[in-house]
């Protein structure tokens, strides 16, 4: 579904050049759930933007569904790291924005938006304006918006960072259901190793400056999965430990 070859991203700023990504090679299969982990500033968001076509890469190639990416695609949905809500729109109207832009069926979209908001615990807040919401509520609105259009590819940048464990678990389940039922391909950035393991078919571990892929860890645990429970607790522990090692610099040599 997604093919990335030798991707390089360089930012030139007034104060010098930042090598955000270098030599990224990655293929994501259709219906696969890939999580990206790595230290803050290692280029995760930049990688997602390159896949989405929002930012043309400085070097290398990206293709989605076989087509080279030259700009955003209608079948790819992006949930940004920041909520990016329109301050003049109510919660429900923010969620409905993709329906308006993609000209989806109005009534169906509305029903779906309300379902999603209820699922995200925002029932009763449909008419509120963004500035009347808490930080986590804003993030949930943004999440609902990215799910509205049933995209083929879903790029999610730390979608649960501002959420409590319970809301996180509920929404993780929904995400897994979506992947299963609607055969969506997901690339998902997270800082939580637990979350990465819970959700992913494969976990991509990145190293910072320049952002490179350190290793790709396969998570071969059958679905549905739930956090901290189930028969595969040992597999989970093993993979988590491995990821922990990869992310931890004192174990530098152990990795590679």
């Amino acid at each position, binding site marked *: 579904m997604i093919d990335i070859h030798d991707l390089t991203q360089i930012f030139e700023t007034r104060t010098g050049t930042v090598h955000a990504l270098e030599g990224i090679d990655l293929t994501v299969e259709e219906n696969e759930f890939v999580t990206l982990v790595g230290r803050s500033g290692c280029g995760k968001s930049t990688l997602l933007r390159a896949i989405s076509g*929002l930012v043309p890469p400085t070097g290398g190639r990206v293709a989605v569904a076989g087509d080279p990416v030259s700009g955003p695609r*209608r079948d*790819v949905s992006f949930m*940004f790291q920041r909520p990016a809500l*329109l301050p003049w729109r109510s919660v429900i109207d923010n969620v409905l924005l*993709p329906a*308006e*832009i993609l000209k989806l069926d109005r009534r169906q979209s509305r029903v779906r938006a309300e379902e999603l908001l209820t699922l995200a615990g925002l029932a009763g807040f449909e008419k509120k304006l963004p*500035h009347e919401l808490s930080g986590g509520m804003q993030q949930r609105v943004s999440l609902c918006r990215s799910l509205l259009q049933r995209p083929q590819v879903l790029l999610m940048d730390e979608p649960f960072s501002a959420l409590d464990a319970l809301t996180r678990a509920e929404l993780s389940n929904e995400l897994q259901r979506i992947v299963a039922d609607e055969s969506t391909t997901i690339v998902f950035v997270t800082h939580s190793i637990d979350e990465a393991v819970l959700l992913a078919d494969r976990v991509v571990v990145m190293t910072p400056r320049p952002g490179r892929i350190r290793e790709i860890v396969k998570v071969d645990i059958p679905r549905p999965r739930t956090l901290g429970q189930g028969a595969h607790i040992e597999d989970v522990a093993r993979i988590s430990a491995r990821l922990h090692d990869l992310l931890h610099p004192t174990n530098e040599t152990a990795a590679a």
Partner: protein
Amino acid sequence: MTVTARTPVVPSRVVPNRGAAVRAVLLPLAAVVIAIGLWWAATEIFAVPAFIVPGPQLVIETLFENFAFLMQQTLVTLLETVLGFLIAIVIGVPLAMAIARSKVLEQMLYPLLLAVNSVPKVAIAPILLVWMGFGITPKIVMVVLLCFFPIVLSTVSGLRSTPSDLVELTASLSARPIQEFTKVRLWWAMPQIFVGLKNAITLAVIGAVIGEFVGASSGLGFVIVQSGASANMALAFSAILLLAIISIALFYILVLIEKRLLPWAEENR
């Protein structure tokens, strides 16, 4: 030792606050009364002759003496102002939209707009007359000429200042440019567009008056020329007073529309 403030942290707009509404009427009134008092004092104390600055009593007397006539002239000027202002919006906003999208257009159009804007309009009034006759058209054109520039400038700036977050959001949805504009940029720009409109409306009034200075036989501008030429400063000042009232009224109508339309704007919360 205790904080017992029971004042809810509520924008006064939300729970209609009677005090605020009363203040919104009383304070401007107070200001006007003070201003008129100062005006009176200045003319009395410094014994300014009435043919330079007439005192307020004289002006208000004159105003009431010529009330029906002046109201007619006010309506004429008001009509020109409002029509020209609306046309300026209809021209200015799309123009700003085009300029905001394209650096090339900006670099080509801004110098021309600036040139048009910097021409002293009184100097080209005869051209307008020759071209458009003595009807309402040249006055409306004058209004448009005077007031479209602030609209363009503010709208361009507003559209351009849309945060990249929000622009990326629509981009990620493959929004067409017109959608990006109507769904995001336009709304983001609204508070700034309103600054442009507020600027424009006061210029629009002036534009109508300048239009009437040359080639008009009605309107407050005509009254001012006529009374100015006969040193009838009391009549000129009544007309000026009415102009000020038109300006203030139109401005506050815009403010009201803004507050209605943009309750989410930081300044209106």
